[in-house]
């Protein structure tokens, strides 16, 4: 483990992590023996086929479930409670409350933290503007497109000023164009704020495009960490990266690891 404050210190690390669900015939392991490190200020992706336990892994990281085996450490700001300090989770279906307006959804984390109304407004307004939601603050989520709901979910996460952003298949239900727009928005926000991001996806391209490190999970019940693939050092950030040869190398390495012929850089 790297010491506090050092460049590249882990904001989140898993050591021998395993989770069992209660099954009809005894415990059913979701994943096991997972070791991984998410360096502070980086974007790390976990890819794997459905059923490999990647979403369960994210739930443990978010403190929604206690691990059956192993430990999660949250780096410098760990308070030993097993709950991540200043982490925000974005679920696959965005987790917006349909009976709350856009602004009420975004302000919800602050409301739950017993922050007063005026402070909530003041904190949410610039984030809504930043994500292009300023004109929609009084809309209900059912009137928004998928891409806009995703932006509301992102705004709700950002209003908590998280150090760690956990995302489950964040863009999987968006059309190709909105997905690329959201990916750019995420990269931009992350670069501006230096937030650490752990995202789970089944898309190799998305993982390679966004993340500087990709963990590959394989198998099921339990799923295991099969490989770690690091981005090529020459990698650029932004839309140009997709057409660079190194992007192709990166995605090929992840694909090979997924298919089981060994990973690169593990």
């Amino acid at each position: 483990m790297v010491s506090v404050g050092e460049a590249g210190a882990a904001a989140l690390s898993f050591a021998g992590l395993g989770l069992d669900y209660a099954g009809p015939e005894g415990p059913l392991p979701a994943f096991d023996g997972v070791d991984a490190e998410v360096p502070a200020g980086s974007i790390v992706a976990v890819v794997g086929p459905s059923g490999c336990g990647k979403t369960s892994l994210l739930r443990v990281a978010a403190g929604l479930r206690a691990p059956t085996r192993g430990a999660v450490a949250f780096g410098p700001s760990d308070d030993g409670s097993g709950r991540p300090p200043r982490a925000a989770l974005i679920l696959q279906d965005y987790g917006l409350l349909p009976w709350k307006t856009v602004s009420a959804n975004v302000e919800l984390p602050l409301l739950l933290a017993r922050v007063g109304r005026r402070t909530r407004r003041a904190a949410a307004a610039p984030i809504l503007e930043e994500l292009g939601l300023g004109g929609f603050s009084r809309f209900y989520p059912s009137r928004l497109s998928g891409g806009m709901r995703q932006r509301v979910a992102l705004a709700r996460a950002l209003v908590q000023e998280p150090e760690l952003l956990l995302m489950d298949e964040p863009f999987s239900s968006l059309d190709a164009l909105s997905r690329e727009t959201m990916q750019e928005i995420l990269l931009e926000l992350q670069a501006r704020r230096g937030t650490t991001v752990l995202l789970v996806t089944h898309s190799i391209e998305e993982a390679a495009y966004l993340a500087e490190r990709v963990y590959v999970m394989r198998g099921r019940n339990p799923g295991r960490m099969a490989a770690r693939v690091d981005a090529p050092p020459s990698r650029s950030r932004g839309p140009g990266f997709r057409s660079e040869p190194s992007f192709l190398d990166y995605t090929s390495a992840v694909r090979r690891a997924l298919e089981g012929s060994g990973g690169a850089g593990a």
Partner: protein
Amino acid sequence: MRRRDRAIRLGSLAAAVVALAAAWAIAAALVDKPFLPPPGAAARRLAERVSDGTLGRHLGASARRVGLALLLAGPSAAALGLAAGRSKGLDAFVSPFVYILHPVPKIAFLPIIMLFLGLGDAAKVFLIFLIIFGQVLVSARDAARAVPEASIESLRSLGARPLDIARHVVFPASLPALLSALRISLGTSIAVLFMAESFASESGLGWYIVDAWTRVDYPDMYAAIVALSAFGLAVYLLVDAVEAILCRWRESG
């Protein structure tokens, strides 16, 4: 858009009133018997009984009984039902009672209730209380069970405590079902109230209808029936209005 919906609803309501009055007028002309007076005669009597305050007094008595029962049963049944829907332990305790008692028509308990609570208002209010309580309890429990787990988990990840989840997720998600339960049980209540008021009462629309019948004053009887129908309609419109205000998020889909 919403204003147009409301205009359409009011229009269809008015059309239904006209159609019913027309059918009534035709039937009255065909039957030509004192026990089916034409709607005009009933309407004139209705106006008289409204202006001399008779119907107001009896309607007030009926409305007070329903209102009191609603106040006592609604919040408590909703709270217990929602809690049972989210807690397996509480549900295991509550559900057997529900399954045994809910299918019995509550009017069957009227004699027992009157033996215990006497012939006064308490018995009538308690009977309506049972109807509203049972219906709201069952609906609340089922609605709370059906709350999407994702909404709850999403709120938990934001640091919500159990009471926050009840307030921000379980209650608003169940509210449409709770209002439906109110609509159903208030309709049943008015029907049952007629029975309860026709025993040993001297007030209430139910009593007034039976009293007019024994006085062989048929226009009076029909005037009171129309008043009872208007009361039921007002209750439905009130629940609809509450729903339109509190569940605005459902219309915008």
